């Protein structure tokens, strides 16, 4: 993980010595790693390794007992999730967390909420500024919809969509927030090859075109090796390895932990 390009000055996120316990369960122990601005960072590890817990710590949903998180130069131990959102962190969930009673468009529009400032009185009257604001953000939401190629389901309630599309809408909601850092918890789980390819393309495009930093959890090793710049490996809540996909793939500890799921 050493190297000139990993100097802390460029790190958008630094995780230092984070430990998280649930009663007797040690979900994370003294985990440290960093994420550089603009990279695609993967977190891998067996089931129950603490990957989702790590994302939850990063966006303030879980509060670690020890350690600190530094995002864009601001260090914090405790923070509410909406504050993390305001700082520019957006995420998707392992189990889809869409607003089931709303349409695709409305779900994506919720992603814009932090950028909308007009108060409720103007909205109730739908007067000039509120109307203009709504229109502006609708246009942005439509750009996200075009980007993700989901024009046809714009007005469909998300509860009626198949799983793969729901995952896509959830990505859209996160993208609508124009985040600096995107946390994706198993964005391709349960998808067929074609859907996975689409999803990979979207992630790489977001990263390439908008320079959004991506941290993703993924079980499919092929995908991880293809799209990530660097990989963190967790096992039983501990950091097992950290490095480029090639380094990680050759690491004997990782090969052990995966018992052959990573083939040389």
């Amino acid at each position, binding site marked *: 993980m050493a190297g000139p390009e990993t100097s802390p000055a460029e790190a958008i996120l630094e995780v230092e010595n984070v430990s998280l316990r649930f009663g007797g369960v040690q979900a994370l122990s003294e985990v440290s790693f960093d994420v550089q601005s603009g990279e695609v960072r993967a977190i891998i590890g067996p089931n129950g390794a603490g990957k989702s817990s790590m994302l939850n710590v990063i966006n303030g949903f879980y509060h670690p007992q020890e350690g600190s998180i530094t995002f864009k130069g601001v260090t914090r131990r405790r923070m509410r999730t909406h504050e993390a959102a305001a700082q520019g962190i957006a995420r998707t969930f392992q189990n889809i967390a869409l*607003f089931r*009673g*709303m349409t695709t468009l409305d779900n994506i529009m919720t992603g814009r909420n932090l950028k909308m400032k007009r108060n*409720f009185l103007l909205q109730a009257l739908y007067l000039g500024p509120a109307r203009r604001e709504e229109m502006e953000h609708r*246009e942005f939401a*439509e750009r996200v919809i075009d980007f993700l190629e989901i024009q046809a389901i714009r007005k469909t309630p998300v509860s009626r969509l198949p799983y793969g599309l729901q995952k896509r809408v959830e990505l859209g909601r996160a993208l609508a927030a124009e985040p600096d850092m995107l946390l994706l918890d198993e964005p391709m789980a349960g998808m067929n090859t074609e859907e996975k390819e689409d999803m990979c393309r979207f992630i790489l495009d977001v990263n390439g075109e908008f320079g959004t930093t991506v941290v993703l959890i993924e079980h499919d090793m092929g995908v991880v090796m293809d799209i990530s710049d660097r990989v963190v490996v967790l096992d039983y809540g501990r950091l097992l390895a950290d490095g480029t996909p090639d380094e990680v793939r050759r690491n004997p500890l990782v090969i052990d932990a995966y018992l052959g799921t990573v083939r040389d």
Partner: protein
Amino acid sequence: MFYREAGQFKSGYAADQAMFPIPQDRYVVIAIVAFAFLGVPLIANEYWLQAILIPFLVFSMAAIGLNLLTGYAGQLSLGTGGFMAVGGYMTYKFTTFWPELNIVACFLLSGLCAAGVGVLFGIPSLRIKGFYLAVATLAAQFFLVWTFNKVPWFYNYNPSGTVTAPPRTIFGTMFTGPEASAPARYLLALSIVVVFAFAAKNLVRGRVGRSWMAIRDMDIAAEIIGFRPFQTKLLAFAISSFYCGVAGAMSLFLWLGSVETEAYGIDISFQVLFMVIIGGLGSILGSFLGAAFITLMPILLTNAPQFFGFSMASDLQKHIELMIFGGLIIFFLIAEPHGLARLWQIAKEKLRRWPFPY
């Protein structure tokens, strides 16, 4: 075939963002509102106005209020009657304290008072949900009614304990009090309801509505994308209680004329909740449908037996009414949580495809 979305290409998002994107819907709404203002006062008699249309408007206002809170923001409340009482009693206080103040201004001020009280009783919603919240709002209901009963200041130390709407005029026309004509009271109630129904529609299709629905559907995810649960829920309580407060004021000043606290009892809270459930949770149109259904049902039950030539004891009729409500509520909760409004939607979808079944 005349009602369809296809072939109506919108020139931009502005058109698509309109309140009623389908022109036919827009025309129907305009026609109904125009008829309600111009036609109804000419043809409806005193009985229709006083026994059906004015209560329908009062309850529509309250149902919109409760629907914003329960249907959109997902916070169950049994305090509707209590918040309506705040509106009724505070309007009474405002208008007797400042008799020159325009009565509509008194309505709005009392709505603000109800909003404040609503926020206060909404604070527990930050910690508790569902059934427990319902119990907390039930406490609000009993506490508020008890207060208006026990503190004589609220009814101006009137020994009978009733409050009576004093006569008030706007531009020389009498709108409240015993002398006010039914059409005048109807028109004022209608104006208020129309304005606030459109305002509610605007709210729910914008950022505020999305924040409520997000909290309702998944509060954790809502917070993670940046909504603040605290502000979002309290705003829902405030705005909802404002609507209920104004409805309570309308109930006293434009409908009943004179009330005791019973007029704002727990039955009212349940009745409005039934309207919202039967009409459709999360639908402004549903609030109207539910209010219409529940105000019309008893009248229908009174008149139907006579129409078919037999008579029914009034307590039996009351029981049948309760049974029908109970059955319908169970039906809607289980089979169609979006209520009559959703059935209407389905009918429209069928109409759009007609004559092709798919």
